[in-house]
């Protein structure tokens, strides 16, 4: 187990091995996302209450699920970089942050677009919407601190502490926002209670959810490999690997 850990922690080993994973991730993504989109948007039956506008769910729900787990993955990378001082984990955290921020933004925007036909307004201060917005701010904080600190390793560690403190705080923020909403306003509409979906509706959704995870890991690996190339540009193995191109 520890040998495995050390091997994968070395940028060189990671770079070589992760290159082999890329085609599988790309294949998974390119297979599942188009399938899910076409199936969900064209062939899945229309909802008996919401009509066709429910179809934005096929983008919104995967984005919202991915938004939260990408924060968890970023913070986990931050924790590893704090505890074991792995350069690779620092690079992983730094490259996951912008992707996660965009996914959260997409979840918010598609949610707003879905809200307009359903609730008659783009934005309400509902507990779930608010905590997703705060999740976006958490990403923004990590990104801003990482940018301000420059490329130094110490800046990365400060950002890692922020990400980890954010991860511990995430449930607190979520519960406090829940209590703020639920005890005071009557629930005029609920995002949580959906009618039980038939299989024709949730199968494309499942394809989309798995597809966006594939997409996330694919893009993350691409960015991480680019980051490794930039950081290790002076090391011997990069030089050997790319000597034809220098």
């Amino acid at each position, binding site marked *: 187990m520890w040998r495995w850990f050390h091997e994968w922690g070395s940028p060189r080993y990671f770079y070589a091995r992760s290159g082999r994973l890329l085609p599988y991730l790309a294949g998974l993504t390119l297979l599942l996302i188009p399938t899910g989109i076409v199936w969900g948007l064209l062939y899945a039956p229309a909802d008996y209450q919401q009509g066709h506008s429910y179809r934005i769910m096929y983008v919104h729900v995967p984005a919202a699920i991915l938004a939260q787990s990408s924060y968890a993955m970023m913070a986990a990378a931050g924790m590893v970089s704090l505890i074991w001082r792995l350069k690779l984990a620092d690079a992983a955290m730094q490259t996951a942050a912008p992707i996660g921020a965009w996914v959260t933004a997409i979840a918010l925007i598609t949610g707003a677009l879905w809200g307009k036909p359903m609730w008659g307004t783009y934005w309400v201060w509902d507990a779930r919407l608010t905590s997703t917005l705060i999740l976006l701010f958490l990403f923004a904080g990590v990104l801003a601190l990482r940018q*301000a600190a420059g490329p130094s390793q110490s800046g990365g560690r400060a950002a890692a502490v922020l990400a980890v403190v954010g991860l511990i705080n995430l449930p607190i923020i979520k519960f406090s926002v829940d209590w703020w909403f639920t005890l005071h306003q009557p629930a005029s509409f609920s995002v949580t209670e959906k009618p039980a979906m038939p299989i024709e509706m949730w199968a494309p959704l499942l394809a989309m959810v798995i597809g966006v995870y594939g997409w996330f890991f694919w893009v993350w690996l691409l960015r991480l490999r680019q980051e490794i190339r930039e950081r290790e540009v002076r090391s011997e193995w990069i030089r050997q690997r790319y000597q034809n191109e220098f």
Partner: protein
Amino acid sequence: MGLLKRELRLLLRSPAEVVQSLLFGVLVVALFPLAITPDPDVLRQLSVGLIWVVTLLTSLLAADRSLLSDFEDGSLEQMVLGVAPLWWVCLVKSVGHWLTALLPLIVITPLLGMMLAMTSETMLWLMASLLVGTPVLSLFCVLGAMMTLGLNRGGALLLVILMPFLVPPLVLGTQWAMTLGQPFYGYLLAGLLCVSLMTLPFATASVARIAVGR
């Protein structure tokens, strides 16, 4: 204990900082009736939230100041190297921040409340919520200030970093005051304070080592 004395002595010798926080609070609160309406009914409804937001901004404004001089003259480095445990240093720094920036504002809350036409009962609960909630703000502000030390980016970065963490005390504090002390919110706010007191000084200490090493 010596650290605490030093912090208090520094505080007593620079009353300008305390006055600055107070003035900021009073002036911002004075802007709201001008910007919204002088109607006391409207102001009364908004008052708890407005005073909490003003307190939060004051806290952020003072955060940079609480560490910068120690960082620049090298005392912070000595504290990191010194015998006193670093988490204790960070806790003392938070206490200092709270005493300079937030306690004076809590003391003049009745004045701010009068400006916003608050009833005395709401005012009492507002003060109670501020007393329990603002130490959490101080602990987070010192953590954020430690993270941005030496980056020369000013307050905007601090707000971006800290905003998500300041939401729970803000939500629980305002709800507690507006429900006139419903125990549910009071317990949660007190619990938040306890958890923050026990954990944040350690997080700040780990960031302090990074900041000094930079």
